[in-house]
């Protein structure tokens, strides 16, 4: 990973609505390769993520889906041997530039993980804690309620906000994690297999929630579940592996096109279950 320089600056938010609306993409990978030591896990990816849409990343195990996802908020850096080549452009700025603060990146580009991971604190504190750390100065009760409502959890927990987040069901815990992620008002939410630990009903609830959230956020989701990608996403990026085991982007397009008429035979073989 490019090492952050000693002087850290924060990423400037766009100053005007004109600039905001002029930008077509929420985030964009350019010639991005990601390595773990000598091993190239993902190679030469060019991928443009549309604003306020859900983009699903699908592909067989080991094709670098999660690595790709984590590259969008520099989460790969938490692996000591990981490093990147190329660029990830966010509001025109390369997130891997030496003066960019990865903590600020992760504030703007939040993440929800495969296994729900609420803090061992009350439901209320699960929201309030992160907000406080991020310097939130407004009305905390309002923020907690708004975040839980936006995550479609408020009706189920409003009368037990002081109970532990861990006392909730798996699906509720995951929605609590989503509430926590959106409480700090990110631009983009990355989701790594957000429903794979949940039962079918809880899974569908998460999917419907994603459709709600995408009205205000850009979502990138990695999923092993092709049906889920088909149901929930607007765009689909299909990754596969080369002979050297490096993952690469094979086909990208509107989800409807990918699942009804993929252009590439390998994509077709994957989505129809012939391999992977």
């Amino acid at each position: 990973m490019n090492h952050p320089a000693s002087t850290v600056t924060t990423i400037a938010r766009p100053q005007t609505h004109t600039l905001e609306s002029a930008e077509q993409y929420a985030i964009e990978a350019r010639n991005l390769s990601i390595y773990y030591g000598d091993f190239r896990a993902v190679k030469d990816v060019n991928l443009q993520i549309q604003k306020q849409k859900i983009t699903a990343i699908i592909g067989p195990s080991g094709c670098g889906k999660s690595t790709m996802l984590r590259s969008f908020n520099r989460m790969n850096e938490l692996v000591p041997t990981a490093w990147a080549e190329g660029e990830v452009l966010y509001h025109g700025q390369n997130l891997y530039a030496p003066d960019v603060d990865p903590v600020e990146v992760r504030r703007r580009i939040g993440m929800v993980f495969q296994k729900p991971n609420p803090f061992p604190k009350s439901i209320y504190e699960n929201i309030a804690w992160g907000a406080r750390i991020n310097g939130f100065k407004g009305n905390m009760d309002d923020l907690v309620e708004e975040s839980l409502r936006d995550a479609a959890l408020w009706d189920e927990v409003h009368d037990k906000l002081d109970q532990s987040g861990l006392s909730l069901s798996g699906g509720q815990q995951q929605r609590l994690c989503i509430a926590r992620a959106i409480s700090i008002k990110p631009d983009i939410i990355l989701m790594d297999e957000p429903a794979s630990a949940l039962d079918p009903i809880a899974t569908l609830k998460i999917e419907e929630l994603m459709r709600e959230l995408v009205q205000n956020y850009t979502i990138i989701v990695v999923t092993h579940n092709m049906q889920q990608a088909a149901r929930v996403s607007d765009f689909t990026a299909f990754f596969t592996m080369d002979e050297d085991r490096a993952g690469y982007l094979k086909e990208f397009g509107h989800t409807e096109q990918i699942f009804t008429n993929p252009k590439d035979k390998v994509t077709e073989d994957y989505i129809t279950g012939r391999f992977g």
Partner: protein
Amino acid sequence: MTRETLDRRIRHLLDEILLLDSMVEQSISASVVALKSRDMEAARRVYAGDQQINSRRFALENETMVVLATQQPIMAHDLRLLASILEITGELERIGDYGKGIAKIALILGDQPPVKPLIDLPRMAAIGVEMLHKAISAFVSGDADAARAIPVMDDQVDQLYNDVYHELVQIMIQDPRTIDRANYLMWAAHNLERMADRVTNICERTIYLVTGELKEVQPTDDEFLARHP
């Protein structure tokens, strides 16, 4: 809140079925009016308008395929509904073709002298359109009882078709110069008779949608077979 996307998309498909149906009903009604009133301009409009019906059908078919592929409604009622939509869009498009066919006959006959005043053909069209309207309403509202009641109306259409047939045969026997024109009218009547049969197919899909049972509502006429050994 677990399947809002699928439900929203199904509602949209059903709205599209209603729209396609209204275009087809209009095509049948307008074609027979054009034939009766010898309105070439109206006939031309119906003939050309069939393209819009066809493209709407393709769009609806494509949208249904996208819903199947992306929402995977592969169980029970959902699956029967999507499969029935595919079937019914085909039936509607074919009925639209009958309207186009009648408009074509209106254009071919042009201002040649009429072989007879058209009374029964408009009646057949009116019953056919009423049957179609009721059948699509029954499908969209998932009303199997209503669907079962509609095919009985087909008997009236068949009766009128027989009347038209015999009347036209008489006219042809009396004046062979009418054969060409009368034969075209026979085709128009045949189109309307087939339309009612296709409406019956739509009713069968509604019954299938609700009950899961695939069977004919107008079984084979054994008496007819007995009369024709």
